[in-house]
């Protein structure tokens, strides 16, 4: 009797173990396939990166850039006299910032072009630059 119960228990355990092992095996197969897929994707991505880098290198080639620059730009090679140290930069002119105004940039603009200045083509009423006093609500100004 005891033997029979024991046998049944063992058989049940065996079936459970087999099912469990099967599940593990199945999962691992799925994982392995996933891994293989990811590897392939990775390899494809790497190939793609390499080919893009090669293309970038081709586009970035100094000879090509030079030819384009000669054709489309007015730039010239830099001369040694055009380099200098930062510590030899002259002091900033003191009257640049408008003392009365809170906004230094508006102050500079105001200094450059006084509100009463009239340009040749634009009538003073439709002036491009608002006077420095109204610079606080500049966003609404151009539509007026």
């Amino acid at each position, binding site marked *: 009797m005891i033997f029979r119960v024991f046998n049944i228990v063992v058989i049940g355990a065996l079936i459970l173990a087999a099912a469990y092992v099967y599940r593990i095996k199945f999962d691992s197969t799925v994982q392995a396939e996933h891994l293989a897929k990811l590897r392939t994707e990775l*390899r494809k991505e790497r190939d793609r990166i390499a080919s893009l880098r090669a293309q970038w290198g081709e586009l970035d*080639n100094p*000879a090509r850039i*030079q030819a384009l620059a000669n054709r489309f730009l007015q730039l010239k090679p830099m001369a*040694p006299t055009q*380099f200098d140290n930062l510590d030899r930069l002259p002091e900033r002119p003191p009257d640049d910032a408008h003392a009365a105004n809170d906004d230094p940039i508006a102050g500079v603009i105001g200094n450059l072009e006084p509100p009463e200045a009239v340009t040749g083509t634009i009538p003073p009423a439709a002036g491009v630059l608002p006077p420095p006093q109204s610079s606080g609500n500049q966003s609404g100004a151009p539509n007026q």
Partner: protein
Amino acid sequence: MSATAKSADAMLPVPAKSVAPAEPWRRRVLRRLLYGHDVNRVAKARARVGLAIVAFAVVYGIIAARLIMFAVVSDSRVAHRVVSGDAIATARPDILDRNGEVLATDVRVPSLYAEPRRLIDVDEAVEMLTADLPDLDASELRERLASRRGFVWLKRDINPEQQREIYRQGLPGIGFLNENKRAYPNGAEVSHLIGRVDIDNQGTAGIERWLDNQGLAALHLAGLATDRLQTPVELAVDLRVQHALRDELAKAREKFKAIASAGLVLNVRTGEIVAMVSEPDYDPNVPHNPRDPSLINRLTTGVYEMGSTFKAFTVAMGLDSGKVTLKSSFDAHNPLHYGKFDIHDFEPMQRSLTVPEIFTYSSNIGAARIAMAMGIDAHKAFLKKLGQLDRLRTELPESAEPIVPKRWGELNTITIAFGHGLSVAPLQAVMGVGALMNGGILIPPTFLKRAEADAQALGKRVIKPETSLLMRYLMRLNVEKGTAGKAEVAGYYIGGKTGTADKVVFGRYSKTRVLTDFMAVLPADQPHYLLLIMLDEPKALPETHGFTTSGWNAVPTGGAVVARIAPLLGIEPRLDLPPADQLILASMKESR
């Protein structure tokens, strides 16, 4: 197992007991004949059962082991099959310049193949394929497809549109394999340096060949280099400098109608070759004849008489020995007679010349007299020490043996003193002059990135630091007052030595065909880079007043190159530096 054994034990004695008394006589006889008189059948049966148990255990063990093997091994085997079906195993590492710009990389390109045995209609296939690939030869294609072979390549390296078209036709027995193809995005820019590969992605020249010799070829043979190799090779070359040098050299070659031009930028502190151009060059993406003699790398594969740049060695030898100082003077009144030879100066001074004058006027007589004062053996030993007499080996597989006179007599010493009679690879001369400039340490040049500390460990001292300082002074003086004046670029404090060598044509020195070269060091007070410019057979132009000497062609080219590359090399322009005798010579007195 033990359970079955137990039951066998329990069962066996039972038949033995029951059979023994009631045995018919015939059986007894038979049993005697078979087993003998006194055999314990029980023991025997047990042994047999044991044997059977062992045999079954072994069989089941094998089955179990095999199952485990399948479970463990199968995955990796599948993955391997996927990879090898996709690519031919010839991946190569990327090659980058010192700033990480791609110089060479692998790209996957589809290649077209056919399995003729699986083709149904050869004529149809030929027709459709030639429609998509017009450059395929129809008759050859037909021949290949009609052969009953298992696999034939039809066309390597087709473009994706062609692949799509052919795929859409759905021909059976026609397929694509992705292959690695080497791409050189910069084309001819770095050709001689980087070399090239053949159709099977094996390196045939330059750094590519060197990579193969580093063990990559063995990997390819074993079929292991399948996936993209992860560690790229970083070279010392700077693509921007390389381009500037090549651009200026191409301009100079065109302007002076020279056969060839070559240039090199060496970091004298580390021995790194930052740029190397030998023009004419080739586009490594395009197959061409590798044996074409006009396309050799003149800096490593060619050997040349370097002309007056060798006077730098002669003067350095004199100064380093201590027998000659800057104040020493040598007689240059008359041409130097030796046997039936006369040594002339290009611009005869007809007086005694001091050492700086010999250097800046580039006096052949003076240089010869310095070398004679040192003696033949000392001269030979000095050049040997500076690596001018032995073959220089770098990473590049191409190298050339210098042509050294077999019997080195006094006449050889006289001519070699001013750069004739000894042919060296220009790279070799650059290495030697680099040692004269950098404080006296000879560092073997390299194409790979190298740290300064490694270079110092590799290098060996060949001249005293003071001698090196004097040589820098002379190089600078030569730009301020001497033959290299046209190289001056304000702010970079260039020093330099010119050289013009008569070429040997039909066994004699030609008066009209020359090879001009120019070595520039920048900045001369704290040398960092050494530049070599070399022009092969430059022609005289109206603006050179009919001269073909180095000062009129190689030197201005050198100046133009320096103006372009100095900002790229990170050299700060200093516009208010005193002349050489105040800056360089004074620092020497201070250090004493």
